[in-house]
């Protein structure tokens, strides 16, 4: 429901936007004939920024005025000095005259740089300058040459910080798009690896890159991804999450619908399954489309170790996530409403441990769960070294002190720490966030309606999960609708030789349509 509304709005606003953009470029379409006018135009558009260099000179000892414009910090000074400037200032035996086709001459003959193009719109010129190109303008020519001279400082390739594995490649993406693409190219040396480039963000003009394997990825999916990305109407894109929130099918959902990774090997594996990766300049996190729920329980490390163990670990992750979600709620339900369901010895033990606790179990549970969340958040905010100390000290000392003071029961401390530890077992951070968040409403329902409260809520949640889709793929895909072949790499991790080349066929495709249906009725 929400989605449709949302997208309609997007479409309309986009139409308006593209119209205005069109008008804009019409007005300033051409580069003026005179170089002075051009420079003036550029100066008004770019403003008095210190880092923009306007270098005027006479072309190769002739009287033809020319100029190069570039941004100091985005360009390779060496290249400008040694190649571009040398070319345009050197004394030629046969100097060009005003009557020659200067542009073609320089474009095809003189400039000895690989990446060279021409343009005649001011807007494009500005765009190119901002990307770190050097613009070469010649008086009397209403076109400009863009010379690819961009170079800036980047972080070197480091070990992945979040997606750690014991065994496996130790490289991760950086903030630089070019670098990231090169990492992927080096993994997949194949002519079918394609990169589609886009520029998104009114202000930031962020470079976005859609990457897929031609002939593996569904072409309609590629176009769908592209059109959704093009529909983004946003000032700035600073991280791939900005894209995620715009392009997912259900923007109001709490569930993560796109997987993200910082590991080139994971992206390569996903591309080979026919998925599509979205790179975003400025972040090491790459989005993967489409994503199914089960994917969040897999980690690239699964493929680098024994498959029995990997399967075991995957099951542990399922169990851990279920525990995180339900343990606090079940604890409340059992000890405040369904005491008859606890084995006698355990019930007496719990009753004994709670004997002098002044708070009702519900209040106690909320108190401790929220304290735990605060501790965790504080641990992230603080510097790395201090953070660990705080969380350990907080958890141990506060927990111990609270128990000693008789404010909370030791059992509750066990429940809280078990919940916490289980939530760390998930390889995907964003799913962990969802689960941590969802356990609070569950706790409220448990305190009101006990086990039926939890069970109905979980069923409704499951119904919701089965109904949502990620780029046309049912979210709970290999489980329901059931596609048995895909169990090999979701619930289990079959040996790699069994996974073969059709590692994942994810999902099934609809064949016929029906007249009466509730779901598509609004679309």
């Amino acid at each position, binding site marked *: 429901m929400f989605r449709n509304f949302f997208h309609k709005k997007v479409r309309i606003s986009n139409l308006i936007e593209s119209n205005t953009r069109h008008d804009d470029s019409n007005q300033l379409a051409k580069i003026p004939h005179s170089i002075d006018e051009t420079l003036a135009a550029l100066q008004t558009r770019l403003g008095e920024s210190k880092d923009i260099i306007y270098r005027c000179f006479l072309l190769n000892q002739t009287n033809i005025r020319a100029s190069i414009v570039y941004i100091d910090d985005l360009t390779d000074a060496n290249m400008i000095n040694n190649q571009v400037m040398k070319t345009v200032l050197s004394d030629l035996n046969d100097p060009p005259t005003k009557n020659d086709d200067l542009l073609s001459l320089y474009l095809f003959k003189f400039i000895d740089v690989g990446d060279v193009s021409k343009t005649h719109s001011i807007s494009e010129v500005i765009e190119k300058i901002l990307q770190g190109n050097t613009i070469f303008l010649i008086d009397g020519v209403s076109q400009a040459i863009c010379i690819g001279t961009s170079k800036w400082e980047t972080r070197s390739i480091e070990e992945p910080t979040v997606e750690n594995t014991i065994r496996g490649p130790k490289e991760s993406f950086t903030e630089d798009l070019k670098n990231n693409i090169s990492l992927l190219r080096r993994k997949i040396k194949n002519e079918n690896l394609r990169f589609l480039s886009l520029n998104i963000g009114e202000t930031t003009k962020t470079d976005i890159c859609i990457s897929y394997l031609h002939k593996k990825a569904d072409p309609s999916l590629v176009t769908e991804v592209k059109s959704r990305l093009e529909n983004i109407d946003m000032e700035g894109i600073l991280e791939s999450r900005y894209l995620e929130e715009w392009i997912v099918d259900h923007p109001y959902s709490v569930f993560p619908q796109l997987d993200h990774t910082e590991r080139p090997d994971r992206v390569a594996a996903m591309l080979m399954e026919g998925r599509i990766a979205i790179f975003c300049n400025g972040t090491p996190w790459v989005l993967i489309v489409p994503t199914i729920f089960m994917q969040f329980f897999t980690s690239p490390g699964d493929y680098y170790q024994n498959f029995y163990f990997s399967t075991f670990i995957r099951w542990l992750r399922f169990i851990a996530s279920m525990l995180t979600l339900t343990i606090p709620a079940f604890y409340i339900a059992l000890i405040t409403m369904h005491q008859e369901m606890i084995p006698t010895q355990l019930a007496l033990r719990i009753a004994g441990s709670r*004997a002098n606790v002044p708070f009702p179990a519900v209040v106690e549970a909320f108190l401790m769960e929220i304290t735990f969340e605060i501790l965790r958040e504080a641990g992230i905010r603080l510097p790395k070294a201090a953070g660990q100390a705080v969380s350990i000290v907080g958890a141990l000392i506060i927990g111990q002190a609270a128990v000693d003071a008789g404010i909370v029961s030791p059992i509750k401390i066990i429940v809280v720490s078990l919940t916490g530890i289980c939530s760390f077992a998930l390889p995907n951070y964003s799913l962990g966030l969802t689960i941590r968040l969802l356990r609070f409403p569950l706790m409220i329902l448990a305190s009101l309606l006990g086990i039926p409260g939890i069970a109905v809520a979980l069923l409704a949640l499951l119904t919701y999960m089965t109904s949502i889709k990620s780029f046309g793929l049912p979210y709970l895909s290999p489980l329901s609708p059931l596609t048995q072949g895909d169990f090999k790499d979701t619930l289990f991790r079959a040996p790699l030789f069994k996974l073969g080349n059709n590692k994942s066929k994810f999902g099934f495709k609809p064949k016929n349509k029906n007249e009466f249906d509730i779901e598509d009725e609004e679309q």
Partner: protein
Amino acid sequence: MKKSRILLISFILLICILLSGCWNRREIESLSFVLASGIDQSGDQFQLSTQVVNTEALAKNAPSGIHSYFVFTSKGKTIFDAVRNATQSAPSKLFWSHTKVLVLSEEVAQKGALSALGFFIRDAEERRNFHILVTPGRAETVINADVKTKSLPAMALANTLESNYKSTSQTSIVTLNDFLLEIHGTECPIVPTIKIIKTQKGEQEYQILGSAVFNKDKFISYLSPIETRGVQWVKGKVKSGIIVTPCLDAGKNDKDGKISFEIYQEKSKIDIKKGNNQISIEVHIKERGNLAEGACIKSEINPNTLAKINKLKETAIKEEIQGALKKAYELKTDVFGFGEQIHRKYPKDWKTMKDNWSNKFPSIPVKIIVDSRINGTGLIQVNEGGKK
């Protein structure tokens, strides 16, 4: 869009409704866990004694010397009446889900156990797998008994009952469900009996000894431990036990020592035979056991002597069963469940016998066939005494 808003509003409304009251909420530490209860007759009223756990005593830093349980006594016209009246003295409503043991006094059992059990059958908090016991004296004293125990007395009682049954089989274990199951048929339940005895030091102790026979839900008489095991043999419920017989080659005097066998029952089968319109019963018992004590055996242990020793065991078992049969005939109660067996095999004949079964049952011939064997002779192959 509108619909989602409606859903949202209804959800908020729902939460409001829900927040207005939390009906079933009760904190676990404030519950009065009833672990054992006893029912006595007090005039024409029931007297209910309940053993309630003192949760404070289970706390980590509980003051020492604090009693681990309380006993509350209340009276009422019905059991439920008495349960509610218990709140006159108990700190909170009694919580019955964790009951382990229910003790009926002989008096109550004589009047009909069902009237006392009705509450336990119907109540949603109740489970059907707690033990039922009968005491010759007052149930109150059993519940009140301050016995030596590591844990709570009720738990200790349940454990004693189970271990006693498992190691001697001279009692029976009857849960509420078993009891109901048997009184619906013509089988007469036998329920373990319990007594409180005083040791020399003056401490109280549980003693579980034999069983009480019921006809339908009414108490009739007691069975001795040996008779109880006789019944259990036929029912196939002997787990393990010890049989002591006079020594092999021994004369009639006891000086020659005794042999004890450890017995394990494997199976029992009640075969109903019908010939010449006369129904007869054959009881097949399959038993495997070990020779546990036999210092008095003089001869070398070889298959021959073993067979002889085995014979001793066989006769002993047979005697136990016959003893039980005799008692059953006396009491005119079908504790063995022969009636149900006939019902299952010959439903038509059963219809004619059904109404007069308790009178008719002693006249049916019963043949006992024991298949007994000695599996092991322990760690000693040849008896030391035999060699000398």
